[in-house]
């Protein structure tokens, strides 16, 4: 017995939280958004989500096998990427594009850069950006598969942008946007569903409020100031409720690997995302800017981390 005593450095106990538990929480938080997708666009959405998840998990498994790494599919992080990727697709997206998306997210963006925690940009958003450039038509086809014969409308943000020129575009009202307005990416449909998931993540302390609050807050303030015909007349509520802002702020910008680790850094990230989103929405040809804003701030994350190293406890009084 003497020789079998384990010698290790303290602490000798550990808490119950695990990477897997966190990832499962994120999946749980996304279930309302999936349900809203199915509600508005039909059962096809389930096929998109399942295809995306299987593609991501398989790509993770195969690439880790080839690279002779530990297989970590049981940590559920590839499942999270799969669900997020699906929620960022248009509802009528061909499934083969989803499969390619899973490959790009997991192999190109995640595993080739070292796997979980090492990727430099959000896998789902990075993949979406590449798909957007490669198959622009499919990626902006807002046909509702549940009602394919209807003429597909403009997304709420497109409606806002075109509003000046085209008279007949429909601009949904706030309540519609909040409860669910079925033109746009799958996950954007219902703000209510996203908020339920977001609040769950906050409650479970999976995410901190720093990024969602600073991101959405910045967009609100800037669109209020600059979004109208005159200063301080912008329709900021419409800007919050329309498009991918809530999805992005709660579920994409908070991705651990690609966001800063300190509260200060996270607030900088959120404000940066908010500024870029507003600039793209108001002054570029694109109606929506959330994903590009997040991707750009992803790239700045290592820099933000470098410049936000906190002062040690008591350090502020060091020379007092």
């Amino acid at each position, binding site marked *: 017995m003497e020789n079998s005593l384990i010698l290790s450095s303290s602490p000798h106990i550990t808490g119950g939280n695990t990477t897997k538990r*966190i990832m499962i929480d994120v999946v749980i938080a996304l279930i309302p958004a999936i349900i809203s997708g199915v509600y508005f666009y039909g059962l096809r959405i389930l096929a998109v989500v399942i295809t995306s998840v299987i593609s991501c998990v398989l790509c993770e498994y195969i690439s880790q096998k080839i690279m002779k790494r530990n297989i970590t599919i049981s940590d559920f992080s590839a499942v999270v990427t799969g669900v997020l990727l699906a929620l960022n697709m248009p509802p009528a997206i061909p499934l083969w594009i989803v499969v390619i998306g899973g490959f790009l997210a997991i192999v190109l963006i995640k595993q080739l850069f070292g796997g979980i925690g090492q990727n430099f940009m959000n896998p789902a958003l990075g993949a979406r950006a590449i798909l957007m450039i490669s198959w622009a038509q499919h990626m902006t086809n807002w046909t509702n598969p549940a009602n394919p014969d209807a003429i597909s409308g403009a997304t709420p943000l497109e409606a806002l942008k075109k509003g000046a020129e085209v008279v007949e575009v429909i601009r949904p009202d706030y309540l519609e946007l909040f409860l669910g307005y079925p033109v746009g990416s799958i996950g954007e449909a219902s703000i209510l569903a996203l908020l339920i998931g977001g609040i769950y993540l906050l409650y479970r302390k999976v995410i901190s409020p720093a990024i969602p609050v600073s991101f959405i807050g910045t967009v609100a303030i800037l669109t209020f100031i600059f979004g109208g015909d005159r200063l301080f007349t912008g329709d900021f509520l419409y800007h919050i409720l329309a498009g991918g802002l809530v999805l992005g702020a709660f579920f994409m910008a908070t991705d651990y690997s690609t966001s800063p*680790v300190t509260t200060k850094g996270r607030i900088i990230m959120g404000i940066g995302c908010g500024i870029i989103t507003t600039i793209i929405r108001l002054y570029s040809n694109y109606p929506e800017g959330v994903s590009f804003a997040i991707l750009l701030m992803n790239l700045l994350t290592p820099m933000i*981390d470098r410049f936000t190293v906190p002062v*040690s406890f*008591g350090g*502020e009084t*060091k020379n007092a």
Partner: protein
Amino acid sequence: MISLRVTKRTFKGGAAVSHEKRTADCETIKMGVPEKVIIPMLQHIGAPCKPLVKKGDYVKVGQLIGQSDKYVSAPIHSSVSGTVTNIISLVSSSGTYMEAVEIKTDGKQEVHESVKPPEYSSDAELLELIKQSGLVGLGGAGFPTHVKLSVPKDKKIDILIVNGAECEPYITSDYREILENSWNIVSGINILMDLLKVEKVLIGIEDNKPEAIKILSSIEATNDDKIDVVKLKTRYPQGAEKMLIYSMTGRKVPPGKLPMDVGVIVMNVSSVAFIAEYVKTGMPLIKKRVTVDGPAVNKPANVEVLIGTPLVDVFNFCGGLKDNVSKIIMGGPMMGVAQSSLNDPVLKNTNALLAFDAESAKLPPESACIRCGKCAEACPMNLLPLFLNQNALRENIEGLKKFHVMDCIECGSCSYVCPAKRRLVQSIRLGKALLRKSNS
């Protein structure tokens, strides 16, 4: 009456560790004299003592058997009467060799002539007495008390904090001290108030120990208007010196500075009670209350143990160990030291002995850092353990400095909360060693 104060202020971060205070209601039981004791010459932070006895010498209880001429050191006394059988070499918990006096006991427990109620007429004499008592910080650190109490002339102390937080899981020895020995704590406080000339004493206790708070706050004693019991939020590491000072006074000890730099001295409750006892009897530090617990212990208990008693005897006294014992820890599970042998002795600053079975000793495997930032949230020192871990593993000295490696108090909160089960504080210790090596 000592008044009760509740403080809402608490340090930032920390971890909600499980309490496991199963022995809270276990009244201290006295363990008999073991067959032999092994008394190491280094049971404190500072210079090791030289043995004053040799093989064959007969020693008595309380007899001085080890001393050093260095200032930062504490004398060592025999806890038994018996014959010195050997001066052996022992590996200390820090991995260095130290001398130890092995004594075969005769069970008579004859008290040495030098042990008599001491008299003193000045602060300097009292300090010298405290030095001779062999007292070191009993909370776990083992810093010689007379050094801590020797305040330089240019430093003004206005608050004495008595640490009864006991934030580590399992340990209840200080809690039992408060319940069983509260009178000594208060008279110890009075002795220290005289010595330090402080006008305010704060006794800090976590709010998961309402009994202790009740007992202390109902005592009537001299100077009780200057003593407050402060109810603290239960959160690990509330009992860590810097965190405790902040929670109780709002003062922050700067990195690399001492509590006395912000006018505070922190003493453990059991140390304070010992001073009162010593001034009464003159019996130096030869015994210690130890919480014996853990999944592999048959009968968890609080035991009064003679210093130098081999661990195996203590565990046998507590009904023995279960067959699947895999880890023996001296101290708490968050900061305690794993022991290599059951023949190692109980030391002055041993406050708990824990035995873990195979299942509880097993830590889950490490996986990749997911950058969740939970370690940064948990760090009470406001460090970024994930980056310290990275730089320690890469042996990047500049990086370690950039992330303030030396400010880490090694409480282990980061490792505890890490969902990827990374050995964060463990690697930070390595990082500190690397930095020290590169500096020398």
